[in-house]
């Protein structure tokens, strides 16, 4: 047993050392997902609703009427009101810098573009404010709550997706590149000429991958929880199991893409071919529900979709592993099948 484990340990250590001594590896594994999380977190942070700009048109000679309407509307939450000469108000409406123009008189005329969403909102808000100011009473008391709850913001949706994408990238690149590089520089052949077992060689890649997984996940998730308050509603153990299964699944796929390739260019091409559809389809940045129903069975069968669903299930919905049996099984199946095929067709020398 020790006889088998010592070479395995040395191979794993060698692999880890070579990785950790390369700044670019550290960047892609640790820094890049964080930078992406920060950038997207800032870009899509939830802002308080911005005010809607409207104008009150003052026809020549009826400035006073316009001012009184302006005074009635001033102080309405979410409305920014300007009293302008009629020609200027019309121009602003044309340019889109105001959403609606109020023309005082009887009747009061609202001029607005029915194709603009902000104009439609302005129409409702302005009329409501004006009628209330003139004495209309609400029939029933109401209250407003804008939604900013933890767990349903964009950043909460994004972080598990980023983690899934990261597990895919590191798993595939980490294994695929290293295998092809060792093959190209004949290190693999040299190792085979020693009494090393092939299984030790392949297992060392998997172990090295798992050793990096812990820090990698903790950095991203820890940061997201602290900086953005992203929730972790399910059990940490369940989360760890899903992360490990995801990492192994993509390690298998990485090994498969690298199993024949002789050049780094070749394996990069293959990996991009495999990963590209998943970046788009698997719900990393936006929900995969946006794609047509006919595509859904295919999308659901992709390993990254399954991993993202499982990660979101645990983090956001607090789902148990049992409840996530479907996506987890899909990941396991991908991992096992890729590994089996990779071993069958692997080019050793």
């Amino acid at each position, binding site marked *: 047993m020790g006889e088998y484990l010592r*070479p395995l340990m040395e191979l794993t250590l060698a692999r880890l050392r070579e990785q950790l001594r390369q700044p670019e590896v550290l960047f892609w594994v640790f820094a890049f997902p964080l930078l992406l999380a920060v950038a997207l977190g800032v870009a899509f942070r939830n802002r308080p609703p911005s005010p809607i700009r409207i104008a009150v048109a003052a026809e020549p000679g009826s400035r006073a009427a316009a001012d009184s309407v302006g005074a009635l509307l001033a102080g309405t939450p979410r409305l920014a009101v300007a009293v302008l000469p009629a020609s200027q108000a019309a121009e602003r409406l044309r340019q889109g810098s105001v959403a609606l123009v109020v023309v005082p008189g009887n009747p009061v005329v609202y001029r607005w573009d029915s194709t603009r969403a902000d104009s439609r909102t302005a129409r409702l808000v302005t009329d409501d404010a004006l009628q209330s100011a003139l004495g209309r009473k609400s029939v029933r008391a109401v209250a407003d709550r804008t939604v900013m709850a933890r767990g349903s913001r964009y950043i909460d949706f994004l972080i598990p997706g980023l983690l899934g994408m990261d597990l895919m990238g590191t798993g595939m690149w980490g294994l695929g590149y290293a295998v092809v590089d060792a093959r190209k520089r004949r290190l693999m052949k*040299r190792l085979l000429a020693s009494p090393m077992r092939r299984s030790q060689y392949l297992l060392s890649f998997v172990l090295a991958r798992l050793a990096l997984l812990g820090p990698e996940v903790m950095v991203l998730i820890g940061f997201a929880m602290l900086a953005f308050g992203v929730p972790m509603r399910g059990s940490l153990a369940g989360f760890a199991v899903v992360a490990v299964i995801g990492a192994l699944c993509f390690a298998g796929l990485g090994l498969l893409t690298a199993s024949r390739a002789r050049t780094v260019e070749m394996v990069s091409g293959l990996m991009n071919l495999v990963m590209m559809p998943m970046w788009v389809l698997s719900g990393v940045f936006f929900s995969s529900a946006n794609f047509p129903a006919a595509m859904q069975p295919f999308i659901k069968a992709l390993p990254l979709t399954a991993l993202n669903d499982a990660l979101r299930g645990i983090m956001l919905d607090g789902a148990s592993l049992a409840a996530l049996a479907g996506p987890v099984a899909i990941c396991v199946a991908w991992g096992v099948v890729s590994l089996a095929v990779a071993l069958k067709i692997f080019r050793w020398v």
Partner: protein
Amino acid sequence: MSPVAVVPAIRCTGLVKRYRDVTAVAGLDLEVRAGECFGLLGPNGAGKTTTVEMLEGLAAPDDGDIEILGMRWPEHEHALRERLGVALQETRLADRLTVTEVLRLFRSFYPRGHTVEEVLAVVALEEKRDAWVEKLSGGQRQRLALACALVGTPDVLFLDEPTTGLDPQSRRQVWEIVARFTRGGGTVVLTTHYMEEAERLCDRVAVMDHGRILALGSPRELIASLGADEVVEFALAGGAPAPVEAELVALAGVRAVRRDGPRYRMTVDEVHRAVPGLLALLQRRGVEMTELVTHHATLEDLFLSLTGRHLRDA
């Protein structure tokens, strides 16, 4: 002599390896004796690497039979690998591992062997023990490759072009390490296209070209087979009618002549008789000599006489 001593370390018969449109090895028979240093000498593309990689069990022959230390690929693969040491042609073992880390890795594969410290001393890399491999010079890297091959105390050492691209001093360091291994009773198979290397290190040499063995024997025997000890090379200026080969062979002490344009190459028994005869002949013709060199016959001269080509640029 005890009967054990005559059991060969390596025996192969009828070895053939074909790639799509080339026959890299075209029916090779070899016997390497236990304890000898055996050289495969040949130009690039002769089939040396293909041959040793088949012997090392890294490439499967299309035909033929290989027996090493009484065992065979692939049945005895693991047992064999524990007893063979290998340095491949052009391998980058690692970039950002230290010398010690690489050696510890290779040592872990073998049930017995040198300690890392011992093998560092054997290849004189103690001072570089903590240096990353990517920071080593070519000679140091090659010595590290040798150390990896030696760390499991092999019975048979395979070295594919161990000194190609090295400066003369690094080359001598490698030779010293190999010589020490054979003095300790180890068997070595090495490939090279440097005739000095084969002459210095090898007990026996197989001269290879186009996947075949052209000549086999000790360097001394092979050179003696030329039937002459010395080589005279000269070049003539143009103008006057140059002498033909037949006239030169007729000179006293000359064995053979080869002409390549204005350049001539004569193998001779006795330089002190051949050169005066040559000078006298040229003087009578009024032909001017632009260059004259004589040297002891080498394996290079043998290769040239067998193939008409040089080892280096063939």
